[in-house]
């Protein structure tokens, strides 16, 4: 909303306020100022001049030399190429050193050998158009027809001296999308008298009701008022109207259209003017459009209509899209004789939907969709008629058509000063509160607050509290701390997540943050089988593009994309992790499952056992014990380098080397390892017991076993046999060497284990250890694992 300060001054006297005080104050009372600018802030040293004489240029056919009186001792000599200059004409003159609104500087100089001491300006050089001064021509010097004095500042002379304040008005305050609304706010904010317009229409003989009829055939139009003006004289509006429209950012068109716009800006309630001769049957009907009907709007665009849209129609066809835009056919033009003014109230949601469907947003639809009160129609239409009479451009026919379709009861709220004081934390008397409310247009009778019709947002005493707080001043409200007890602590799950973060960072992985949605093509890139249930993902109805169309069911594409970006940005190494969600569909109309996954992805200076080590260390830090690693397969993993992690038959997750095909799909040219672990499964397996078990008092016995076996035998199998044979006294088992080569047969390998054995209560004897080892070796031999060395 752009507000003309000149216009504001019509209704509230702000002469004692600087523009800074005004805008700061309004921002702090709730009408946020985005900025302000003066129309003339760039224009310098341009004055009114009078052309005294015109002579031909000695050396140029198309140039003339003017002698221009600018109120100085001597007239200026100015050379121009314009051919509309006349002796005695008043013109805008740039003195030497002048600045035009576009920043151009004008200096005196020679034109074809003749001194030119300045420049005469056209409309466009002043940043104006024919809409602002309809009598002027576009391609020539602006010959002034204003009342002005020679030497007067041009901005003063032509009224180009307004200040425009730009507001960001919140959606609950459509009343502030108007000069009157902002004037009321200004008066209340600065405790100044508010002098709103009070339209009075004299009217002529006759009654519109005798010749014209309005029918409302929809509950979505709560009021329709119409007045008729006969014998209108269509011409440009007077300067003061044009100035105010220009400052508000609306192009002046002709007096009737300008009046409808002027009144809309003034009251915030849109209106419309129809050419009465184009309303077939002298009947206006507010109804739903019929499917298949169409309308060409004032902007000359043709629209197909549906039965969800409310139209203003004549007896045959739609003549305006209700609350959005008028039709071209019924619009006012230079030949219009009689007009019908409309001031109506249409349902906000309906206007919003229609405007959206037709892809038109207008000053009218913006106001309607926020909700307007039918009680505001009256002032609007009367003001328009008053302006007709004031400008003497037509005869306002007596009588008014006023079809009402709404409940007249006014919103009332009991003033509960104590509640408001407690709610806000202030201590104002009821009297002070009433003063604030009255300044904002509320009436208060016997502690009952009557909400004015323009304040559709006020429904509850909390709304009243806001009115009082914002005018009193938010920054005058004291500050205090919350009373009462509260315990701020992380939940067990949150602590666990924190521990996962800390552990993975300590293990050298950096946290990443990826999108939750992805393109469905990613499932192909990770080579998921076509029947894989993970392909069944939640789809977004209105994605921005394919990339945001599917909620991920797996985090592998996310991490692979990031690894790929890093690899292709030539980062030698990237060890990354993310704790993020996957989203799995649930039965219709229940919310999907959101499952936390710990995703790890690494390349550079690592192998399979690096990521395994990261996972093992992580689980250890998390007090999750007894993980078994089971050979596994499936995309996106390498067929022979993939493992599932299991505890007590529960799968914690899966990890391994990225399948070469997948690596190729993601353009990763280096061995890469990824893991996806299920957060809550791991959390639930966290060991509950966490007691101290004493530093050992008795020494440990350590034995090394080097074993030889077929490649097909897994170390995991061997460890299981060792554990079950040695039993409780086995404290630790570590692999310290895996060897293939000389001395070992083909397809065989040697694995060396270091076994640490200890009894809590006594020193173990060599004999019992030897016996345990012997037993172990015998068991191992049964699966063809043979002893190579023992020490």
């Amino acid at each position, binding site marked *: 909303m752009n507000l003309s300060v000149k216009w504001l001054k019509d209704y509230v006297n702000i002469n004692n306020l600087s523009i800074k005080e005004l805008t700061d104050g309004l921002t*702090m009372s709730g009408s946020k100022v985005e900025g302000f600018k003066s129309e003339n802030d760039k224009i310098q040293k341009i004055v009114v001049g009078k052309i005294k004489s015109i002579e031909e240029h000695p050396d140029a056919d198309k140039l003339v030399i003017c002698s221009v009186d600018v109120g100085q001792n001597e007239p200026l000599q100015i050379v121009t190429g314009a051919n509309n200059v006349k002796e005695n004409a008043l013109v805008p003159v740039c003195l030497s050193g002048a600045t035009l609104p576009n920043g151009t500087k004008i200096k005196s100089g020679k034109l074809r050998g003749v001194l030119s001491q300045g420049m005469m300006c056209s409309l466009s050089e002043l940043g104006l158009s024919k809409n602002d001064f309809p009598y002027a021509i576009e391609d020539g010097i602006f010959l002034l027809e204003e009342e002005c004095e020679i030497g007067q500042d041009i901005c003063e002379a032509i009224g180009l001296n307004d200040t425009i304040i730009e507001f960001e008005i919140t959606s609950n305050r459509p009343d502030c999308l108007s000069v009157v609304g902002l004037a009321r706010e200004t008066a209340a904010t600065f405790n100044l008298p508010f002098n709103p317009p009070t339209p009075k229409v004299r009217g002529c003989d006759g009654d519109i009701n005798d010749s014209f009829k309005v029918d409302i055939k929809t509950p979505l139009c709560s009021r329709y008022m119409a007045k008729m003006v006969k014998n209108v004289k269509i011409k440009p509006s007077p300067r003061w109207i044009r100035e105010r429209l220009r400052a508000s950012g609306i192009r002046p068109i002709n007096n009737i259209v300008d009046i409808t716009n002027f009144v809309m800006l003034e009251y915030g309630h849109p209106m419309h003017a129809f050419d009465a001769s184009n309303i077939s049957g002298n009947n206006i009907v507010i109804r739903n459009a019929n499917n298949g009907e169409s309308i060409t709007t004032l902007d000359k665009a043709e629209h197909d209509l549906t039965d969800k849209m409310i139209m203003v129609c004549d007896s045959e066809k739609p003549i305006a899209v209700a609350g959005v835009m008028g039709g071209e056919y019924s619009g006012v033009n230079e030949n219009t004789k009689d007009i019908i003014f409309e001031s109506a109230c249409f349902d906000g949601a309906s206007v919003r939907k229609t405007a959206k469907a037709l892809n038109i947003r207008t000053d009218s639809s913006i106001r309607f969709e926020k909700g307007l009160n039918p009680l505001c129609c009256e002032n609007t239409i009367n003001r328009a008629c008053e302006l007709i009479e004031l400008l003497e451009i037509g005869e306002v026919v007596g009588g008014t058509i006023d079809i009402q379709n709404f409940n007249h009861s006014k919103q009332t709220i009991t003033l509960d000063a104590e509640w408001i004081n407690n709610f806000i934390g202030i201590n104002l008397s009821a009297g002070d509160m009433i003063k604030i409310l009255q300044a904002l247009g509320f009436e208060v009778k016997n502690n009952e607050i009557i909400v004015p019709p323009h304040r559709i947002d006020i429904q509850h005493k909390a709304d009243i509290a806001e009115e009082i707080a914002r005018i009193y001043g938010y920054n005058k409200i004291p500050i205090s701390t919350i009373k009462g*007890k509260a315990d701020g602590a992380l939940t067990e799950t949150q602590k666990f997540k924190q521990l996962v973060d800390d552990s993975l960072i300590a293990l050298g992985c950096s946290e990443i943050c990826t999108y939750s949605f992805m393109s469905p093509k990613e499932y192909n890139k990770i080579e998921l089988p076509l029947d894989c249930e993970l392909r069944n993902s939640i789809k977004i109805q209105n994605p921005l593009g394919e990339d945001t169309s599917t909620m991920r069911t797996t985090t592998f594409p996310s991490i692979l994309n990031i690894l790929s970006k890093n690899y292709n940005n030539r980062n030698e190494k990237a060890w990354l992790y993310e704790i993020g969600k996957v989203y799995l569909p649930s039965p219709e109309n229940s919310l999907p499952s959101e499952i936390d996954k710990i995703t790890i992805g690494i390349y550079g200076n690592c192998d399979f056992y690096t990521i395994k080590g990261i996972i093992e260390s992580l689980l250890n830090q998390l007090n999750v014990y007894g993980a078994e690693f089971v050979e596994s397969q499936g995309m996106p993993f390498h067929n022979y380098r993939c493992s599932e992690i299991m505890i007590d038959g529960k799968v914690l997750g899966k990890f391994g080397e990225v399948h070469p095909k997948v690596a190729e799909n993601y353009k990763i040219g280096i061995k890469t390892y990824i893991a996806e672990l299920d957060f809550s499964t791991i959390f639930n397996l966290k060991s509950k017991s966490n007691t101290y078990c004493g530093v050992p008092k008795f020494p440990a016995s350590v034995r090394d076993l080097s074993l030889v076996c077929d490649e097909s035998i897994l170390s995991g199998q061997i460890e299981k046999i060792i554990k079950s044979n040695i039993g409780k006294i086995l404290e630790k088992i570590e692999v310290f060497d895996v060897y293939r080569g000389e001395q070992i047969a083909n397809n065989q390998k040697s694995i060396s284990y270091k076994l640490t054995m200890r009894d809590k209560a006594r020193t173990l004897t060599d004999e019992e250890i030897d016996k345990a080892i012997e037993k172990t070796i015998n068991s191992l031999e049964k699966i063809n694992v043979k002893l190579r060395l023992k020490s």
Partner: protein
Amino acid sequence: MKEQINEIRKAAISQINSCNKTNELINLKVKYLGKKGKLSLLLKQMGSISPDERKSVGQLANKVRNELEQNLEQKMAEIKLIEQENKMKSEKIDVTLPGQKFQIGNIHPLSKVMKEINDIFMGMGFSIAQGPEIETDYYNFEALNIPKDHPARDTQDTFYINDNILLRTQTSPVQIRVMEKQKPPIRIISPGRVYRSDSVDATHSPVFHQIEGLVVDKNITMADLKGTLELFVKKLYGENSNVKFRPHHFPFTEPSAEMDVMCFSCKGKGCSLCKGEGWIEILGCGMVHPKVLKECNIDPEIYSGFAFGLGLERIVMRRYNIDDLRLFFENDMRFLSQF
């Protein structure tokens, strides 16, 4: 005999003085003071001298022995010192060579600041609540006093799964979920992802993070809201931070406000960081709308509360002078390793 003792003394002292190795010094000790050393051997001849003389010779011998022992000890200490020094000298290293590299990962800047903010509020007694990212229209809009066709829905371009289910556009639905489950007193924050269908550019992302806050109890006032949020800002930006509260509108709070913090760069004068305004908008807040409390079966006549919501990305961008939001989601190691 006394002369002989003095000679031994003289010879021993001179040899001790010129010695500079520990093993040589030990040999000297044996040579002069050992059981078969020169002094012992000489004293074995004590029997051959007169008893009168014996006493004074004995005294002299003891004196010399003590003196030599002292000399030896002193010399030993000197030599050891020199030998240690020499050993260390041979061990000299180049301290400017690099230290052993330990690889430690980095926390994502968004998490880093989010944790900082969580900690500040936990210190004020807030707990952390979480809610689903895929939400129903009811929790994201209706229950927050944003009915269908409310103009506020225009400013939040929503990703829909179907007519009723959507990607939450704000963390505010968590307020409703908490109030449904928990009776006052309530004091929570809820950090998390939110979604809006904004095309990606330097300042927009379809995924971003908000931190929601909610306090509900008896006698909660707007003064409490101001006090809490001002304390938060002072902890986040420093004791000297200034804030101001501007009236604003949110459908689910009444009164509503936006909180601005005085620009850290220009201290309110106006600069490019604050776009000339001198203040930077940090968060939206307000007193929980009584309609919203009622919707959650909390009696607004007994309880009141305040709520606030802030966008994490913008705070992190200002904290680290990051000029492009996309960097957060590109996760380049050269970016990540700076936090």
